[in-house]
């Protein structure tokens, strides 16, 4: 069975600083990997996804993520955060066969301070 671990429940960074949110997965095969963001009282918005190929993928709003098969990780990064990036970030995985459902991590609540 697949599982996703986001080890940091809360992260606080200063505006303009760099950011890394961690995600590790457990799966017998390399799954599809996703990062979503959830703003208050909203649904999930896709930031980026990885299926195969270049391990560094670019997403929206300056976000990128790096896949590491050896570490079973898919960490999210941003070079310079803005106050509007404050939200909850979820890592999710799915297999490319079967019922396609996602398995989510517990989320990381990001707070950007002035």
């Amino acid at each position, binding site marked *: 069975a697949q599982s996703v671990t986001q080890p940091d429940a809360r992260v606080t960074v200063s505006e303009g600083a760099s950011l890394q949110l961690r995600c590790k997965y457990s799966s017998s095969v390399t799954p*599809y990997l996703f990062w979503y963001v959830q703003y208050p009282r909203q649904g999930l918005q896709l930031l980026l996804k990885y299926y195969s190929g270049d391990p560094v993928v670019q997403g929206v709003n300056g976000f990128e993520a790096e896949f590491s098969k050896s570490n079973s990780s898919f960490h999210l990064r941003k070079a310079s955060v803005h106050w509007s990036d404050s939200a909850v970030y*979820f890592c999710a995985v799915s297999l*490319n066969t079967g019922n396609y459902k996602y398995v989510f991590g517990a989320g990381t609540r990001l707070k950007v301070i002035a």
Partner: protein
Amino acid sequence: NSKVIQTPRYLVKGQGQKAKMRCIPEKGHPVVFWYQQNKNNEFKFLINFQNQEVLQQIDMTEKRFSAECPSNSPCSLEIQSSEAGDSALYLCASSLGTDTQYFGPGTRLLVL
């Protein structure tokens, strides 16, 4: 931006009452998912459909939850007899299948 539509946005029910929520997937997406997100941000997969047929559903949905995705009509998720523990955000998502899921804004259910 996602084009998945969910109604209503908020739903308040008493214990034992029925609660029904609807979802219109993105046009052309044959696969529809329902997830429950609780106040601790834990997600629970409930059920998914492909072209109106159930792909998988968990035990909970087999007992008090019912769902359907008829052709040419919104998909729906109904809780037959609401319990306090059902209070959560219910998210509908759609996809082409083995691809990215696009989520609606959710229906927030409060069971008093």
